[in-house]
């Protein structure tokens, strides 16, 4: 069980949210099928800190970004897209 701090509603149980997966930059508009497939299918899937998108589907309905540790499920930051990113250093694989 994870307590996830929605930037809009505050701390809520994770079953109020929909997990939308790790966030990765989209290919540019001119990107070919190969790039799009890599974007859609290939995942980093790290055992450590990861940036992902969550949707508060059972709450305010807002999508937001979160930085979560995939081994301990600790969440150290959440923020709305487009807003200033919190100051955390991502250590891949730690």
């Amino acid at each position, binding site marked *: *069980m*994870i307590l996830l701090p929605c930037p809009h509603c505050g701390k809520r149980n*994770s*079953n109020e949210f*929909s*997990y939308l*997966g*790790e966030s990765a930059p989209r290919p540019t508009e001119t990107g070919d*099928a*190969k790039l799009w*497939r*890599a974007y*859609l*299918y*290939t*995942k*980093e*899937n*790290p*055992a450590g800190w*990861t940036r*992902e998108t969550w949707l508060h589907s059972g709450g305010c309905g807002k999508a937001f970004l979160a930085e979560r540790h*995939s*081994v*301990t*499920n600790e969440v150290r930051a959440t923020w709305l897209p487009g807003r200033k990113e919190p100051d955390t250093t991502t250590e891949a*694989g730690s």
Partner: protein
Amino acid sequence: MRQRGATRRRPQRYSAFGLLRHGLRHDDWPRVWRTSELDRRYDVVIVGAGVHGLAAAYYLASKHGISKVAVLDKGYVGGGGSGRNTAILRSNYLTPEGVRFYERSMELYRNLAVDLNFNVMFAQRGHLTLAHTDASLRTMVWRAEVNKLQGVNSEVVSPEEVKRLVPFMDVSNHARYPILGALYHPPGGIIRHDAVNWGYARAANALGVEIHQNTEVTGITVRDGRVQGVTTPRGEIAAPIVLNCTAGWASLVAGMAGVKLPIITHPLQAAVTEPVKVFLGAVVVSGSLHVYVSQTDRGELVFGASTDPYASYSMRGSLEFTEELASHVLELMPSIGRMRVLRQWAGLCDMTPDFSPVMGTTPVEGFLVDVGWGTYGFKAGPAAGEAMAELVATGRTPELISAFGLARFEQGRLVGERGAASVGH
């Protein structure tokens, strides 16, 4: 004199007579497999001593005569998904590729006890997948037709037939999710998963394969696009072929060779009740209720659920899971309300976008993968091991697994198997 078993090349054969003699003599059983020093060089290094890695090693040695093989594991034999699954076997999948593949695995499982000289306790008790909606009934008719075309015994049955097979099931239309029908797969059943792991380990070891537990692979050396070997805390190992069979950890091991995979690791939780007298014959699965139930030979009810809804490497159980599971099981079988749950656990599933595995070669020459099994890995073990052994020995991808290559994601040729998932994921 008592040490004889440990130094002998072939392990003692198990038989009813041997068991009786041993019981009367009261001496120690010899170790089931030998431990050995880690060598500097092997023909094949297999990462992961679960059913996939051990089966691949066994078929390499038994069918292709390649026995200079090391199976490395960061933990112990069968400590990952191979010892954490709910031990259900079936071949009633949705795509022809999937059905053919899992049917080959069932064929190998049926003869496994004799092949390995190890009692794997395979019980073909029948497998029922319940339909609670028109949509799932339609998918089941589809699955039954695909199965029959591939020669797999599978048919859609009525709620009355379900009641006949599992008498205490609530098939009335007063239930919250009334049962509209079921996909019945008589050859499906359960097996003792630990015995499968140990049986393969023992048989492979008897043919010269080395099994190194507590030997974590921490790096994979690649030079000019070719794999050179692996690094472990016990030293460097040179090998022209490295096979990744690490399921939930597959992305991390592939990352060491610079290969990216289309895999997300999700935990899947399961639970077991206290043992009671045998009352449940068939394996019962309900997609809409996200639950599958079977009873072991010891009498415990084993429950499995869908994967946790977010990616994680955490293997801790959660209260949400137990609550949800209990409410769903009681929908189906109100009469077991007084049974107590003994324990719950989680295993890691390597989920792919199309719910089909990733088997075969990678852009790094000599680095092979047998991963992406998601929630189907255990039942696939023997067929996957056999196919990967053939790929290693001949250098050609066997027809049976040609649809499951890593390149399919780049080419957009996915093999959609989601409709055959036991429960919604």
